[in-house]
């Protein structure tokens, strides 16, 4: 244990020396160039200081970003199993990924599901909480802290284990609560059954899209669940995605804060004027609040979508080793980890990460293109 600490400490000192040396070198080169171009002493000094201070990032960019990106582009066209050298195979990895890999297809469909259902759920709950907090009540800070807490804790594997416990279908907290409530009230029971029906049909449909086989979907859609049925959460492929959507909604605190700041920046005169004109609450919400916080929605949409695509902790902790359900909640990054590091397929993993990068870039590009249609940046 101490050797491994010592090893890293020695490397840390070495790294710091290397960074300082490269800072001085980079600054020195910059000063020489400015002097050669005939810049004044002040300009020379600033060039030195600027490049010297920015050097850690510039050097780090070349070593940890530029070189890896170029290398992985090359490796994505090879078969590469460490420690053997890579072998060029052309687009074979990409063809296999897109046409002949049910796991990758599952990962894409799952990610699409999370973006389609998880993201809007997150946005709605975040906005709702922000509106609640924005009512100028006592204890706003306390509630804000409570709502933000899951963001801090939510990605910690140790904390996520608590969800494993609560999701247990037999003696878990959630199902015990649902069972108790449905015994007390027939209405609740009916609502629960409706929810189970809708959820299972929806998930069966998505599983059908993944496998190309819709018998399960037909079966779930033709039978309304019995009175004693409960959600199976982590134990059934029909529920795993719903469990993860719940986790996503639980940790929507950063979105809520962004919304809260946006709500705070709306001038109160807008509402006063609308009230004088006799606008109802709904009208005020739809015509004033929503358009004016659209930049916040746009930001949350992009950041939230990228976060969902990059999700790893949740499927890893909740469903890592159960082969029957894992495939139903693979995210692309989870699959990337499995393919690359469990099965040592570097070239294939590089191809996955490039397709992923392309997807993120294309979606972000279109969101930026489409934002003029609905995002309102200027207040006046």
């Amino acid at each position, binding site marked *: 244990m101490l050797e491994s600490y010592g090893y890293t400490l020695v490397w840390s000192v070495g790294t710091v020396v290397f960074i300082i040396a490269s800072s001085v070198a980079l600054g020195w080169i910059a000063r020489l160039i400015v002097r050669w171009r005939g810049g004044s002493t002040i300009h020379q000094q600033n060039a030195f200081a*600027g490049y010297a201070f920015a050097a850690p990032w510039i050097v780090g960019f070349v070593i940890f970003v530029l070189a890896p990106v170029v290398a992985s582009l090359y490796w994505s066209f090879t078969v590469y199993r460490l420690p053997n050298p890579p072998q060029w195979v052309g687009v074979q990895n990409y063809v296999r990924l897109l046409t002949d890999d049910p796991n990758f297809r599952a990962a894409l469909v799952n990610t699409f599901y999370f973006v389609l259902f998880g993201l809007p759920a997150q946005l709605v709950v975040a906005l709702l909480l922000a509106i609640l*907090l924005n009512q100028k*009540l006592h204890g706003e800070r306390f509630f804000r802290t409570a709502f933000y807490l899951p963001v801090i804790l939510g990605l910690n594997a140790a904390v996520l284990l608590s969800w494993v416990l609560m999701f247990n279908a037999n003696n878990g907290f959630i199902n015990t609560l649902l069972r108790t409530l449905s015994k007390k009230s027939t209405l609740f029971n009916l609502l629960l059954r409706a929810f189970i029906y809708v959820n299972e049909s929806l998930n069966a449909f998505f599983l059908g899209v993944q496998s190309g086989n819709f018998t399960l979907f037909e079966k779930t859609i033709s039978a309304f669940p019995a009175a004693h049925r409960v959600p199976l959460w982590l134990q059934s492929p029909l529920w795993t995605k719903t469990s993860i959507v719940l986790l996503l909604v*639980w940790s929507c605190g950063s979105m809520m804060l962004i919304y809260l700041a946006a709500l705070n920046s709306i001038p109160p005169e807008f509402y006063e004027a609308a009230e004088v004109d006799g606008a109802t609450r709904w009208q005020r919400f739809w015509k004033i609040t929503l358009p004016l916080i659209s930049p916040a929605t746009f930001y949350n949409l992009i950041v939230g979508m990228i976060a969902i695509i990059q999700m790893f902790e949740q499927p890893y902790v909740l469903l890592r080793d159960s082969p029957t359900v894992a495939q139903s909640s693979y995210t692309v990054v989870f699959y990337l980890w499995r393919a*690359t590091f469990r099965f040592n397929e570097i070239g294939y993993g590089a191809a996955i990460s490039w397709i992923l990068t392309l997807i993120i870039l294309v979606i972000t590009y279109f969101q930026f293109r489409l934002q003029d249609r609905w995002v309102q940046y200027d207040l006046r």
Partner: protein
Amino acid sequence: MQAHEAQQQSGVAPLAVTDGRWRMWQERVERAVLYLFLIAGSLVMALPLIWMILTSFKTFEEANAPQLVWFPADPQLTAYVEILKDADFLRAYANSVFVTALAVLGTLVSVSAVAYAFSRIEWPGRNVVFFLMLSTMMIPFQALIVPQYVFFNKAGWIGTYNPLTIPGYFAGGAAMVFLLRQFMLQLPRELDEAAFLDGASHLRIWWSIILPLCRPALATVSTFLFVGHWNALLQPIIYLQTTKLYTLPVYVASLVNPQQTTQPWPTIMAASVLTALPLLVVFFLAQRYLISGIVLSGSKG
């Protein structure tokens, strides 16, 4: 109806009174409902944490009972005693503290230096480099996992803490640089100009004038970094590979044995509580800065 008649008879005043009372009542009910929602919401949000703590005080039988046991009948400390006797857990704790401290410190210093370059010095090419840095935020980190793994493998860094700490020294995290730069831009320019005339170097201005003024932003950045490194799961799994080197999240997750139906839940939850504890402490100390920091980074995004 009555109010309407009153208005016809004696003008506006009575209407205003009844209307005002009615309004006050309505407002009170509304507020009560709002508080109910807020309290219910925070309970739901805190539920996993509450459940974790409750379970850690239960007995093994209570935690694995076929019927849910809400509260421990006789709160036990055995789970904590047991987990604190687990040498692997203690080692994982020490490992997490070591990695997090080293990574946060290195990143904090380098990030603040780079943010200084982007906000307080005019140098040729500054905008180009800054734009380059912002565009790296668009590259998803997964695009880098695979090739970085190969690089670190070639460097002989697998099974060491270097891949988790060293990259941070190179101002890892463009978002953090951006946040600090935004903060530094707000500080008055006269500060460094006066110091500059007195003959202070940039190194001195950065370290003894700008950095002390940036304390709130530095608190935000270090909290983000702390949370990120303390929670990190993917990279420790990829690079550490032996139980001896595991950090807390990897070790605690490995306590659950998926082959068994019953788990030592009280012990696992005690481990979770101890893992979450530093997060809670740091969060409550820094939450004021944290929340303004999130808004600062989001508003300009």
